[in-house]
């Protein structure tokens, strides 16, 4: 008996020593094709090959990834840069270590019959905006256009939009926030023809901010073991992303397999994967300093209500992508 115990204890210790490094990744939203690269890397064994034991934590409307990171609930999080930089200025030093999304999928979708043709037509209108850190791009856009956001004739009335498209469909709002890969298609699925809509992509308005980067806590980057772990994680994740781009249909099916809520539909995920692939295209995971600068400039140009008050220092690092991609 004693020997068996000792033997199993030994086996456990050996197992412990050889176990893969754990990584917990906090997503920004529920399981969907927006995060396909990570699920593909998990499913295709890229993480295993990198000796990583990755747990993907789905988010939701009431989960703030920076808070999870601060509380030690995750090793890395996905976040939009405006939200991450705001968190950084509030005393939570998060650092961007990789940027798999090259382009922004954020846009405003308006009814065409409102006669809106450009941002200046937003005056006097009601616009649905997501909060939870997602309002920053909108606020800085409006302040660049010189449009106040506290209602009235010359301003816009801002509605806190839930994560659905009802306000537009019920015409409680003239425009709402949509993502190219998600809510826009919910409007279409509700029976609205694309001809009835007019959309404004933040990308085309010059106020696009970086979305869906990988962020970690600054203090963890002082630990070489953590840096090594993240280097392998980013390399494997990017491998997953490139595979997902090349195989959108299979990637969507992998995402569906991992959706434990069963809320996602095949048609929706296939379409989402197709749109998401357009956003990740052109990024090898390394952050382009020019994109970063555009994001910071957009956020600093916040007028009376700036998102961040000073240009952040050390908010991103190329250490990990330099090592991961070479």
């Amino acid at each position, binding site marked *: 008996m004693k020997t068996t115990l000792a033997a199993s204890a030994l086996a456990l210790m050996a197992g412990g020593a050889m176990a893969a490094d754990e990584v917990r990744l906090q997503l920004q939203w529920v399981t969907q094709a927006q995060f396909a690269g990570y699920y593909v890397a998990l499913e295709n064994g890229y993480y295993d090959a990198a000796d990583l034991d990755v747990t993907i934590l789905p988010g939701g409307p009431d989960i703030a990834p920076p808070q999870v990171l601060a509380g030690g609930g995750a090793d890395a999080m996905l976040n939009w840069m405006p939200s991450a930089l705001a968190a950084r200025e509030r005393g939570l030093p998060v650092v961007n270590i990789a940027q798999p999304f090259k382009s922004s999928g954020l846009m405003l979708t308006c009814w065409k019959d409102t006669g809106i043709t450009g941002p200046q037509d937003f005056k006097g209108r009601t616009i649905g905006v997501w909060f939870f850190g997602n309002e920053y791009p909108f606020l800085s856009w409006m302040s660049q256009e010189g449009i106040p956001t506290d209602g009235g004739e010359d301003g816009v009335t801002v509605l806190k939009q839930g994560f659905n498209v*009802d306000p537009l469909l019920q015409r*409680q709002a003239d425009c709402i926030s949509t993502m190219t890969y998600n809510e826009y298609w919910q409007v279409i699925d509700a029976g609205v023809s694309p001809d009835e809509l007019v959309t404004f992509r933040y990308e085309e308005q010059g106020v696009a901010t970086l979305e869906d980067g990988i962020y970690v806590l600054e203090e963890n980057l002082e630990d070489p073991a953590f840096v090594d772990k993240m280097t392998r994680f980013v390399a494997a994740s990017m491998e997953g992303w490139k595979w997902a781009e090349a195989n959108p249909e299979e990637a969507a099916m992998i995402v569906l397999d991992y959706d434990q809520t069963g809320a996602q539909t095949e048609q929706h995920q296939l379409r989402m994967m197709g749109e998401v692939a357009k956003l990740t295209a052109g990024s090898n995971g390394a952050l382009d300093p020019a994109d970063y600068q555009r994001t910071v400039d957009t956020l600093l140009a916040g007028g009376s209500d700036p998102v961040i008050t000073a240009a952040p220092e050390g908010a991103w690092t190329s250490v990990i992508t330099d090592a991961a991609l070479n």
Partner: protein
Amino acid sequence: MSWLIGALIFWALAWGANIWLANGRFRASLSVRIFVPVLFGITILVLWEGVVRAFEVSPVILPAPTQVAETFAASTDLLWQDFEQTVLKGALRGYVIGALAAFLTAVAIDRSAFLTRGLLPIGNFVAALPIVGIAPILVSWFGFDWQSKAAVVVVMVFFPILVNAVQGLRETDAQARDLMRTYAAGYTQSLIKLRLPAALPFVFNGLKIAATLALIGAIVAEYFGSPTRGMGFRISTGVGSLSIDLVWAEIAVAAMAGSALYGAIALIEKRVTFWHPSQRT
């Protein structure tokens, strides 16, 4: 660590003082009765401050009370605007409408056995509706502004007041009712002179329960779409933007508003139902 030790020492001293006061000669005096719970509350704040400082808890997880107080003082304009939107517009209007509707329904139910069988189960049904389910629906019916919040409050406060009022109206004993009959009092007379006064303790009970429900309803309803002001809006978005100190300031306002509303109703009750055994001292 000195912060933690200091907080613990304060805790021990305050505890001792409270035990001494609560068992002391003046324990029945008003000042002691107020001082003891206040000291208890202060102790909790001191412990909180000590723990947060000693363990250097990140302010995005739990800010210290002094930090919350600073934020509170610095953003009174914002807090007032949110208070106005949520409490004065949403909660109170919904509360008054809901209470009046429930009270009138109770009188109607009391009048007719038919309605007792028909309306009470419906009231019961309404009370069983989950608020997170109906709030988004009411938001889409009544719009994003305070009207939909008031509607949620109406739904929430209706049932507790209704049940209490119906029960209260049945509270008179047979002798008292017989007496009214021998006076040749009609339905309205016996309702106003006898049964409504007898129902008051019950009605106030319902009103007190509903007072805190109203506030919760108005705040939760703002989670499902709101203009960019209001306590629920600020609490739900404050977490996302990591301004947890502001969230705590809003929570403090909500707690104070709820206590004040409850206290006001309790005070009115004391004046109006002075004859009831529960109010005699």
